[in-house]
Structures are given as structure tokens and as C-alpha cells.
């Protein structure tokens, strides 16, 4: 048996500082919103000419007077991603860009993907993304409250907040792009992290019923240990699947799988080190559970 509970305080302190750092990062550095949430134009371009590189593309786009833009390599040697921030890029602009590009670097390229999101749509997408995440947290809170007791519900939701905020904090720190699929990833993290927490909580509840003489501090530790191999195996198989998406699933899924990988790691950690210490703090005992059973 591993004494996880010996480190409750230490890890709580670490988590707290990570959350604070993340919030500060979100506040001062902000998130790198992609075209989905900021509006603008994104072009994925494949060059069939070896002479085309980031520098030549940057020069060509620089001449077009498009405002802020950004050119970078995208996976393959000859694939590039161009992001243009100008918000009123109208429907025709893509065609003009294509023409001007042809005249400056020749015609040996093609647009593999074009995304053009107007400011109104991007604002709506951002709003619905935030609502979706808030709604999922609320739904989880409610569900656990029904299935368990409010103490459990609070512990689970704090663990979720922890995972979501630190994942976002890392995205801010490394300036990784936030787009629609990242929102999907965060919602899945919410589901996964909850999943992990619930399994341990389920065991805590079972043990609470069984042992009246064991303090919650010990009891959480027993429950964590009893479910530990499951926690590890499931995390490993999920991570195996995610790493496989990250490495082989193509450039478009990279951000999504990376967010999920972070989320699974934090989710597993928080199920042990956030969700359980909260139960200890809230002095959950057999009475808490029996009250529920008696009703």
C-alpha cells in the first residue's frame, strides 16, 4: 500500500500554486485564440516547388497589405499555414490572394484548406464554447450531487476546475492555439477526469459503509490504493490511444490530442490529490453517507 495521504498537503500546495500561476497567465498573457474564436482567415498551403519557403511566403503576403499575418510550417516539409488576422476579409479576398500569390511565386502551390470566420461568428463560437464548458461543469456538479453527497460534488468539481484551468494555463504558457477542437478536448477532459474521480469516490462510499472506525484520512488512502491499478491501467490505455493520435493522426488533430493528453494526466492526478483531500477537509464520515441512506 502506498501512503498517498502523506503527500496531501504537499501536492495541494503545488496544485494551488499551479492554479494561481495558470490564472495569472490567463489574465496577463491570455490565450492564443485561433481563427475560430478571433475571426480572420486561415490558409493551409502546399507548395510543389522547393523554392517556396516561409521567407518567400512571408514576403509575398507582406506585399498584399493584409494587416497582421503569420506564416509557419505545418507538419510536412512543403506544407505551410498562413493566418491572417484582418477581420473583414471578404469572400472574394481568397481569390485575390491566390492571384497575387501566383504572380509572385508562380503557380506551383495549392490551397488545401481555407477557413474564413467573420467577427460575428467567432464571437458566437467563443460564447457557445464558454457556455458549453460551464454547462458541463454544472451538469457534473449536479449529477454527483444526486448520486453522492454535496461534499463529494464539491470535491469533484474542484478537481475538474483544477484540470481545466491548468490545461488552459499550459496552453497560454506555450502559446498553443485554442480552436473549436480544443473546446471539444476540454469537455472530454471534464468527462474523463470526472470518470476517474467517480470510480475512487464510489469506493470511498463503499468503504465508508463498511468501516465505521476508520478515519476519512485513512479511508481515502485505502480507497485510492484499492482502485489504483485500475486508475493506472485505464490512464495508460487512454494515453496510448491519445499518443497514437498525436503522433500519427495528422497535424489537424495535434492540438486536440495534446490537450487531451495533458487533461488525462492532470485528471488522474487530481482524482487522487484534489478530490480526496477535499473529503478529508470536509470531514466526511460514515454519518454523511448514512444520512443519505436513511432518507
Amino acid at each position: 500500500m502506498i501512503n498517498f495521504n502523506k503527500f496531501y498537503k504537499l501536492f495541494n500546495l503545488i496544485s494551488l500554486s499551479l492554479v494561481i500561476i495558470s490564472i495569472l497567465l490567463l489574465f496577463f498573457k491570455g490565450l492564443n485564440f485561433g481563427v475560430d474564436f478571433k475571426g480572420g482567415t486561415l490558409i493551409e498551403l502546399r507548395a510543389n516547388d522547393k523554392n517556396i519557403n516561409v521567407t518567400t511566403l512571408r514576403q509575398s503576403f507582406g506585399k498584399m497589405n493584409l494587416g497582421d499575418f503569420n506564416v509557419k510550417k505545418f507538419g510536412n516539409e512543403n506544407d505551410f499555414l498562413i493566418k491572417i488576422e484582418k477581420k473583414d476579409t471578404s469572400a472574394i479576398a481568397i481569390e485575390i490572394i491566390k492571384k497575387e500569390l501566383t504572380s509572385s511565386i508562380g503557380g506551383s502551390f495549392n490551397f488545401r484548406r481555407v477557413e474564413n470566420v467573420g467577427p460575428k461568428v467567432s464571437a458566437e463560437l467563443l460564447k457557445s464554447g464558454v457556455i458549453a464548458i460551464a454547462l458541463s461543469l454544472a451538469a457534473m456538479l449536479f449529477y454527483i450531487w444526486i448520486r453522492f453527497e454535496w461534499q463529494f460534488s464539491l470535491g469533484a468539481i474542484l478537481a475538474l476546475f483544477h484540470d481545466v484551468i491548468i490545461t488552459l494555463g499550459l496552453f497560454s504558457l506555450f502559446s498553443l492555439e485554442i480552436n473549436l477542437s480544443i473546446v471539444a478536448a476540454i469537455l472530454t477532459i471534464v468527462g474523463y477526469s470526472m470518470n476517474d474521480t467517480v470510480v475512487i469516490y464510489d469506493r470511498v462510499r463503499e468503504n465508508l459503509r463498511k468501516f465505521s472506525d476508520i478515519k476519512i484520512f485513512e479511508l481515502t488512502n485505502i480507497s485510492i490504493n484499492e482502485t489504483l491499478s485500475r486508475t493506472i491501467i485505464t490512464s495508460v490505455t487512454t494515453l496510448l490511444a491519445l499518443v497514437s493520435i498525436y503522433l500519427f493522426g495528422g497535424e489537424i488533430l495535434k492540438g486536440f490530442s495534446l490537450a487531451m493528453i495533458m487533461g488525462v494526466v492532470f485528471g488522474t492526478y487530481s482524482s487522487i490529490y484534489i478530490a480526496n483531500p477535499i473529503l478529508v477537509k470536509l470531514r466526511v464520515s460514515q454519518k454523511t453517507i448514512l444520512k443519505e441512506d436513511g432518507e
Partner: protein
Amino acid sequence: MLYFSKLRIALVSLVTIFFIYIASSNFQDPENSLISKRINLGLDLQGGSYLLLEIDNEPVELQKLQNTTTVIRNFLKAKKINFNDLRIQNKTIVFTVPKNDNVLVENFFLDKESEINPYYNQYKSHQFDLSIKDSEFILSLSKYGLIEIKTSSQDQALEIVRRRVDEVGTNEPNIIKRGNNRILVELPGLDDPMRIKSLLGKTANLTFRFVTQNNNDTFGTEILQFEDGMSEALVSKRIVLNGENLLDAQPQMNNQTNETVVSFTLDRVGAKRFGKATSTGVGKQLAIVLDGKIVSAPTIQGVIASGNGQISGNFTFQSATDLALLLRSGALPAPLNIIEERTVGPDLGQDSINAGVIALMIGFLLVIFFMFFKYKIFGLIANITLLVNLFFLVGILTLFGATLTLPGIAGIILTVGMAVDANVLIFERIKEECKKEKNNIIAFDTGYVKSKTAIIDANITTLIAAIILFFMGSGPVKGFSVTLAVGIFTTLFSVYFVARMLTGLYVVKNKEKEKLI
């Protein structure tokens, strides 16, 4: 209990075989398979264009206000009410009447039978909200009046957009309403939406109007530019003919001038008007105005009574074809703006499919090896379950004709990773029970029973996330939530029916064995 009747074994096997068949039908020639259903590939996988159009209703609202102003003017004149200062101001109609006529006028607007201000029974409200300050009447479109305008212009626009897209002839376009002022157009397989975009970007409001020399035309005049932007002309506001009178329009080569033109045929009313206009206006220039710009302004040579005519104007064959198409499909009630566009080329779509399939296979193999290494025989059972689960998942997506997107593939891979969770929970529980209980069969049974609440709770939380994602997400992300949600159900089914049966059969056979798991 872990004993299974022959019937049950047969049923589970049958269901499994059924889904394996359905899932595999995706890879067969549609001609030779019994099931015609297929998983649809999303635009991000098969390539194509997604366009979100927003209807700019402002001109329609303004038009409505103008029309109503005319009606009010005529009405007040007819009633001999001495009105003053009737005008449109900040999207409202404003006018004043003498104090003693106040009540009379007010009643005309608030009457349920009012012709000026129609009453919508379904909303229990009038088209216009009325407010009166002293003797000043202010009419503004009510919430429901605006909704009426929006829905009717959306209906019309949808029809016109559909006609235009159909005329271009892309395969299986999907054109649907979004909200009350948007239209979503999905064009599978189209990697360059330029032509459609320019076709949808035009209102195609066609009018024939005389060019005049003097400003004192009774209907008023305006200066309009030619399409080339080089010159302009003074044009009467009187509309001789508009696009609604057109029956047909086709691009054509004019044999004499060797020019590409658009020839048109008018309906009966149109032909009559055109005949009259050309007979009275010989020698005059008739401007053909499209969306506020003059296409050309030919001089009338003689009477055209047949109702056939030609529009010339420096067309290429392509632009003549497009103009003819626009004229045939009719004018949009209001301008459309493309507010969101996502286009994926077919080669990127294929690359995404390939990458997705490779990631799925590698992820699957990694998980399978890990499970086998960890649980041996039971790992094998979990792996068989996982495979069957995949068939169930793909089979159900096929049966529903669901749309598979790139995030959807990610959802399948993620399901592979998370699906073993239920089996792991059960196996771990059985392991624990085996320590206390000598009888293998009882230990297995309790293992299944005691792990149940955790499994259900754990899966419901993921399901909640998936459902929220489904309602809040758009496009590809929706595809992810669908596979995730369906994956939860197939996982539970495969774990409780397939895996449970397999473990049951194995345990019953080896019930005397020690350290079974």
C-alpha cells in the same frame, strides 16, 4: 449468474455477426451489398465547402417602411386627414395629425382588422408598435413584425440559393436554415467555391430603365455607374421591366457581332410592357441595371413585341453563363453575406482519413498488446470485446447514416482507449474478490455486481459531456460528440453481453483452477 443459456449465446453471437456485417458493408461495393447505408464522410474528410450566409435584412425592412409609408399617405388622404411631416426616421415612420383626429387615427392602427398595420393572430401582436407623443405618431416594426420579415426573406432566400446551387450542379448539396436570418450551404466535393460564392454574393436584382437627359423626370432620376466603372449615366427611377418578368435566360453567341450575349424570354405581361416601351422609346437608350450597376444601355432600334431580347455587355462565355443563371434563378430578397467559410481540398481530406486510420490501428494495437500483457487470457477477452465494440460502433454509425468527421475518428480512437476501462474495473474487482472467496464462480459474480455502480456513474459523466458537446458544438466537433456518445453505449453493451459471456464460459470451464486472473 455466470451460466448462459444456449439461446442467449446464440442471440449475442447473432447480434455481433449482424453488426460485423453492417460495419463491413462500408468497405464493399454498394452494388453488391445488401445494405445501402453508408457512413457519410464529413466535409473535412471528403473535401468540400461549408458556407454560412447571413441575410442582410436592412434593405427589406427599409422597403417595408417605404411601402407602409405610401399606404399610410394614401389612407390619410382618402380619409381627408390633415397630416404633416410624414417621413422615415431611424427605422421608424413618423407623422403628425391634428389633435382632434388623434383617436380616429390611433384606432386605424390598433384595430384587429387593420389593413395598414396587420394583426398576427399567431403572435397576438401587430406588425408595428405604435407610440404617440402629443399628436406625433411613431410607428416602429414590432418584434413579431421583424420576425415575419426575417422568416419570409429567409424562406425566399433559401429557395433562390437552392436554385442557384442546383444550377451549378454540385453533387448532393445540403442547404438548410440556421436561426432566422442565416442559411448554411454545404457543398461536398467542391474544393474551389469561388464560383458559387460569387453567384451567391449577387442579389441579381435586374431592372430595365430608360436613360434620360434631364433631371425633371416625374419618377425621379439617379446617376448609376456602368459595370466597368469607367462611365456613368443618368437613369430614370421608373422601372420598365424587372427580373420577375423573365421566363428564361441563356448565354448565346451573337452571330453578327461575334459577341457573347445573354438572350432572354419574357412572360406575357413582360412582353406587353417591353413592346410598349420599345414602341414609344425608339431612339432612346434603355439601361439594363443589375444590382445598381448598368450592364449595358443599348439604343432601341425598333419595336420588340416578341418578348425576346438580348443583353450584351462585354461578357466572356463564363460571365454570360453566370448572368443567365442568376436571371433564371431569380433575385434574392436581400443581400447575402458569407460570414463563415471552411473549405477543405479533397487531397487533404484523403490525407486526414489515412492518418486517422493509421492512428486508429496503432492505437488499437498498443492497447491490445498492453491488455494482453497485463491480463493474459482475460486480456484476450477484453481485446475481443474491444474489437466487437468497434464493429458495433461503426455498425451503428452506419445504420444511422451518421457523418464521420476527423474529430469523429479521434472519438473512435479515444473510445478504444477508454472502452477497456469497464472491463478493467470488473477484472480488478474480481481479482479482489478472488482473494476472499474460494469459489471462482461466486467471486466472478460478485465482481460483476460490485463494479456496476462505478461503471455506470463513470460512463454517465462522459455521456453528459458528449451530449453538451453535441448541442453546443458545430460541424466536425459534433461528429466527435456523436462517436463518443455512441461509443459509450456500444462499450457498455459489449462489456455486459459479449465480455461477460466470454468470461462466464471460460470461468465455468476452469472453475477449479487457482489464481484464475
